[in-house]
């Protein structure tokens, strides 16, 4: 019996020793543990979708043996610290909106991806990529530019410094008993700088004023200082071009334009335009406005006017933009943004033009499709249709109701006070209201707005390409779209340019399918390992 006990004890001790020895040996093959990673995202002030998306994505990434510290950050702090402040600790999940001018891919290609850019928060710097980024900016021939941009995306995809997760679906809710032909502006959100749906809509009743239920106020009617409500300003002040539903610039106040050389754009204005006070719009007004803007450099316009040297009149309806350097984005970003001021109302003004109170001075006058009527601060803006406009809508005016909160917007839509609501309500809520009420119609707007994952490329483990590759392979884009965005998003494409930008997206990029096992294999092949608790360890140095 004693012998038996001794044998069992010896065997147990032996097996235990073997187990611990093997374990120790296997632990020796592991490098340091990958520390808990910080995952920053927009806090609840931007809605619940970011919290939910970050949780969904981190759940899948955790299957690689990672742990996360979730860090919700208030929107403006997020922008100042992470997007433009270079203070990304490890990872971030956030989105950028479907602004009309971002249909040009320069924001994605240059601003957030190239060396030295302030908004390059993932701190990836590739000299070859940046050289191409600068090159494409100067390629005014769109075929040549497209080729360079596709090449950039291939390079980006091979390095995957960050990646898009989903593309946002926006919405419009409108009263279909009162309005028809409310057209879809996709792939751009319903921005007032567009024709769709604003100028296309037609009234079905005697109520010929469109009431738009919105959250926020406009800060001023001076287009040189407004930053947030630039679209609303463009209802009053015509731009030279507009972005159409196809995402391309189309003639507006400018009947046509052409690059006469790399830095000169000759513009021919329409000859049937008048300002709201009845004065004709001429090249003198356009040249005055452009040269005045170049002279005083309004700060809020700086991102779009920096490359303009001035303007020169050719004849009454023709003038030339003089650019400092060739600019391939000029048509999409500058011509759809720049406006025309009436020279006869501004030329003799001696005060600070940027801060001029145009409402108090009675000069909120442009040539746009709507004329200023009234502004009740924090209540409403009332514009009336400029009937003489070449694209005057088939109704008599538009009011923007500054309601301040989503419940009030919902109430105004239900009681018929408001006719249209856009992205100010959660898209799912708009969709539900459209299904619940016969008189409300919901339009889905698939857009190029993008939720993306950023990594701090300057530190391990993100400085390792194989780790980034594994992380992207473990990114559950479909889950994020369904669970994070309640279905009002679609899984994003590859590279860094949204698929919705059309010709600029390189559809030849190899798709990276979501596959946790494949992601673990990538890590294993790269020398990473897992301990008994399943935590990921770096390769042994």
């Amino acid at each position, binding site marked *: 019996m004693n012998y038996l006990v001794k044998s069992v004890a010896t065997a147990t001790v032996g097996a235990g020793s073997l187990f611990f020895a093997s374990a120790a040996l296997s632990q020796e093959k592991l490098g340091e543990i990958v520390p808990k990673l910080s995952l920053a995202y927009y806090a609840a002030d931007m809605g619940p979708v970011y919290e939910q998306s970050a949780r969904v994505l981190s759940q899948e990434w955790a299957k690689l043996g990672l742990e996360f510290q979730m860090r919700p950050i208030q929107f*403006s702090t997020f922008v100042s610290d992470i997007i433009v402040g270079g203070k990304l600790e490890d990872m971030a999940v956030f989105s950028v909106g479907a602004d009309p001018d971002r249909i040009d891919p320069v924001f994605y290609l240059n601003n957030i991806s190239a060396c030295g850019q302030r908004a390059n928060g993932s701190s990836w710097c590739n000299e070859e990529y940046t050289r191409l980024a600068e090159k494409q900016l100067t390629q005014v021939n769109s075929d040549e530019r497209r080729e360079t941009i596709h090449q950039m995306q291939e390079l980006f995809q091979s390095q995957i410094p960050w990646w898009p997760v989903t593309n946002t679906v926006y919405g419009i809710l409108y009263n279909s008993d009162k309005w028809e032909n409310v057209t879809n502006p996709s792939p751009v959100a319903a921005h007032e700088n567009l024709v769709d749906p604003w100028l296309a809509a037609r009234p079905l009743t005697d109520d010929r004023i469109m009431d738009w239920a919105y959250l926020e106020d406009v800060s001023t009617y001076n287009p040189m200082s407004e930053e*947030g409500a630039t679209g609303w300003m463009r209802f009053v002040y015509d731009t030279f071009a507009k972005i159409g539903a196809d995402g391309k610039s189309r003639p507006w106040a400018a009947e046509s334009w052409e690059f006469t050389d790399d830095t000169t754009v000759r513009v021919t204005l329409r000859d049937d335009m008048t300002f709201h006070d009845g004065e004709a719009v001429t090249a003198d007004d356009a040249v005055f406005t452009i040269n005045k803007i170049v002279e005083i450099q309004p*700060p809020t316009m*700086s991102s779009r006017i920096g490359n303009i040297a001035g303007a020169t009149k050719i004849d009454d309806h023709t003038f030339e933009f003089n650019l400092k350097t060739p600019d391939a984005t000029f048509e999409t970003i500058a011509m759809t943004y720049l406006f025309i001021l009436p020279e006869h109302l501004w030329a003799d003004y001696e005060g600070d033009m940027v*801060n001029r109170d145009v409402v108090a001075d009675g000069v909120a006058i442009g040539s746009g499709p709507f004329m200023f009527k009234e502004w009740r601060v924090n209540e409403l803006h009332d514009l009336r249709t400029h009937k003489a406009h070449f694209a005057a809508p088939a109704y008599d005016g538009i009011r923007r109701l500054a309601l301040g*909160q989503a*419940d009030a917007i919902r109430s105004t839509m239900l*009681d018929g006070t408001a006719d249209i609501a856009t992205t100010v309500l959660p898209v799912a809520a708009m969709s539900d209201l459209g299904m619940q009420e016969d008189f409300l119609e919901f339009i889905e707007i698939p857009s190029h707005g993008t939720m993306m994952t950023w990594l701090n490329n300057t530190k391990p483990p993100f400085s390792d390409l194989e780790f980034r590759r594994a992380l992207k392979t473990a990114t559950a884009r479909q889950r994020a779209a369904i669970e994070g965005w309640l279905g009002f998003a679609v899984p994003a494409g590859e590279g860094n340019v949204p698929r919705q930008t059309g010709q600029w997206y390189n559809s030849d990029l190899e798709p990276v399918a979501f596959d946790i096992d494949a992601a673990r294999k990538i890590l294993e092949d790269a020398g990473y390992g897992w301990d008994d608790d399943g935590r990921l360890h770096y390769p042994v140095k």
Partner: protein
Amino acid sequence: MRAYITRRLLQAILVVFVVTTIMFFMFRIMPADPTTMFLEGGMTEEARQVLLEEWGLNGTIWEQYVLYMGNLLTGDFGNSFFYRKPAWEVLFPFIINTLWIAVPGLLLGAFIGSALGMIVGWAPRGGKVERSGILLATIIRGAPSFVVGIGLLAVFSSYLNWVPGYGMGDPQGQTGLMRYLNWDFAHHLILPLCAVIIFFIPENLLLMRSGVVEARTEDYIELVRAKGVSEKRVAWHAGRNSMLPLITWLFPALAETIAGIVVVEIVFSWPGVGRELVLAVVRQDYPVAQAAFFLLAIMIVLANLAADLTYSKLDPRVAYK
């Protein structure tokens, strides 16, 4: 008395100075400055510096502080970063809008609350009326004003559709002075006004009840009763003598109303100073936010002073030295 007033005024100046200083530094220790949102849109660094200089945000924080306090002494609150005009010009119309719900709300809340307080205080101790009154006051006092507001919205606006639940008037309504003198404005006023009234009922009810409960055992009440007057008349005597704390409470309550009405204005989309204050903080419009806080500090300090002085006038037993 003169020495007392002088001393209180000096204290008031000190309080306002401290509040103004705290507000100044509070906004500036926030991680993002007001140009942040422009940076996301691609504003150049040169343009940002121009804006920071224009807005007085480019020096050290002490230089900014000295400049701000110097301007404040001359009555200059600075220009709104958002509206690009003087902060006071921005706030003034909103103050008028706020007073439309604050003053009637406070007075009606005080009237209804004190009437209920008198009934509850005069009712038999421990009876149904007293217990129900105290329970009602406790529930209302415990409910945040946004809960009351949302409840009113849900029932009277969304469900019954009796009154509008947002804004100050129909978008197609009248403008100028006439917008305040018509049924449409009154119709829009009903719900936010009710929310403010309900907000003030419990405090008045409990103050009045305490006073009446105390007064009903006083000798003069027995004397009134001995005269053979009706019980209602006796209760009126008790109530009238219990109003002193209420009247003095009304002064700071008005200032508190302006400060506390923020939530009501947000819930009902009422374009008042409270809603603008919240928007100014969100937009990081420092001059407007600081001017609004400065105004509130002044109002609260002066209201407290007025309450103390009124107290001494109403009750000759109170003397200040």
